């Protein structure tokens, strides 16, 4: 195994040269992108430096409660993001709770499974393993759940007449909603299916690249990447299925009615 090459802050500044060049080009060509580009880059620097500091402190503390607290904060932000990414969302607390709940349940089950059966760190909740793993699983599940819910909520509004026509002909809510549920599930699953299909051919995944750069044997890095991709795929699938089916149930009632009154019009992101 080759050694790990530590980076200085000067190296980081140098890497940003091309970004600054892009901003300059944007200015010269009047693309009006330079402000956005620099703000986004600035946000990234501040967020990552803070995360680095926080993770260092959390790893040093090695406390299950602090680990749980950080995981809860991650869940809080991801849940907010799921809600914000839907053009139309469920009204009231459901708008947050349903997506966040499905994502958290799926992410927790899959992460706990991986920690208990494959990675087996000591202690099992070790923040150095639990938090990055939970973060990757959560981030991808969040994307799938928000896409699935956004597709479902948009379609039930657009397909209202078709759904109600079926209900009026004595179809059950399950039968009437099945076509839109299928399409919503497909939307939620598409990113992870595409990611799995393209991984290694089109691009090397970020985590694997990071491990290789930090001196890990490529085959070991591949094994870790496969493990992560399977976990992400499993959690995304569970999360999307749970969220879309639960939301389809919420959007209908026991008298087989479509309840669009349970959707709130979104003010937009």
């Amino acid at each position, binding site marked *: 195994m080759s050694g790990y090459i530590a980076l200085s802050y000067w190296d980081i500044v140098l890497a940003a040269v091309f970004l600054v060049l892009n901003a300059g080009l944007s200015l010269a060509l009047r693309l009006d992108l330079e402000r956005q580009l620099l703000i986004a880059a600035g946000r990234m620097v501040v967020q990552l430096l803070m995360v680095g500091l926080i993770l260092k402190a959390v790893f040093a503390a090695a406390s299950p409660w602090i680990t749980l607290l950080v995981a809860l904060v991650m869940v809080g932000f991801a849940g907010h993001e799921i809600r914000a990414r839907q053009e139309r969302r469920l009204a009231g607390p459901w708008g947050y709770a349903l997506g966040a709940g499905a994502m958290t349940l799926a992410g927790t089950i899959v992460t706990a499974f991986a920690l208990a059966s494959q990675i087996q760190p000591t202690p099992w909740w070790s923040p150095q393993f639990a938090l990055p793993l939970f973060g990757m699983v959560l981030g991808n599940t969040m994307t799938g759940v928000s896409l699935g819910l956004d597709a479902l909520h948009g379609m039930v509004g657009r*397909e*209202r*007449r*078709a*759904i*109600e*026509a*079926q*209900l*009026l*002909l*004595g*179809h*059950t809510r399950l039968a*009437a909603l099945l*076509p839109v549920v299928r399409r919503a599930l497909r939307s939620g699953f598409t990113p992870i299916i595409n990611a799995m299909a393209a991984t290694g051919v089109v691009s090397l995944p970020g985590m694997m690249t990071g491990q290789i750069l930090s001196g890990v044997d490529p085959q070991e890095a591949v094994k870790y990447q496969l493990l992560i991709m399977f976990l992400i795929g499993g959690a995304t699938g569970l999360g999307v299925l749970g969220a879309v089916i639960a939301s389809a149930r919420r959007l209908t*009632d026991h*008298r*087989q*009615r*479509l*309840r669009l009154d349970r959707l709130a019009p979104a003010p937009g992101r």
Partner: protein
Amino acid sequence: MSRGAAMLEVIDLRTSLFGPVSLSVAAGECVAIMGASGSGKSLFLRALADLDPNEGRVLLGDEDRDAMPADRWRRKVAMVPAESGWWSDRVADHFEPGAVAGVLLEAFGLPDAMAWEVSRLSSGERHRLALARALALKPAAILLDEPTATLDEAATAQVEAVLRDELARGVPVVLVTHDPAQAKRMGSRLLTMERGRLHARAEARA
């Protein structure tokens, strides 16, 4: 209960947007409801079909709507909205297999429609096909929201002839229409919906 020959009875039916409305429609009777747009006619039909949350009782003969599953109720009491939806590309996918549909399509002057594509239907064809697919379920009561609004005279006559057959079988019909002539032709009773309340047509005029 056999098809038809049952009274449709509505007792204090209401939602937050209309009512309370009470109404009895005898077996084989057609009650025509008129009224301005937004007066609550369509909402009344939707509540009868249990498509929106509502309060009150609806009985078909001695059967209570709320005592049976909603999907069974809607097969007994067919509602055809003013604009129906389509969930598949082919017309045939919207009909349950059986000989009844063929007879109805013949009566509506659309004998070959089963082979057609929904995207190529005119609004008048859509209207008649939506009516045909509902009547093909042999409902025991029929609720119609402007069933001939987009039809020419000939097609309107076809629809009314089919409805007269249903009435003759003892099926009660609630007909929402904006056409006073049709209300008089078809309705044995004329009612007006005003701000969510039903009035006898004569009273409404007074």
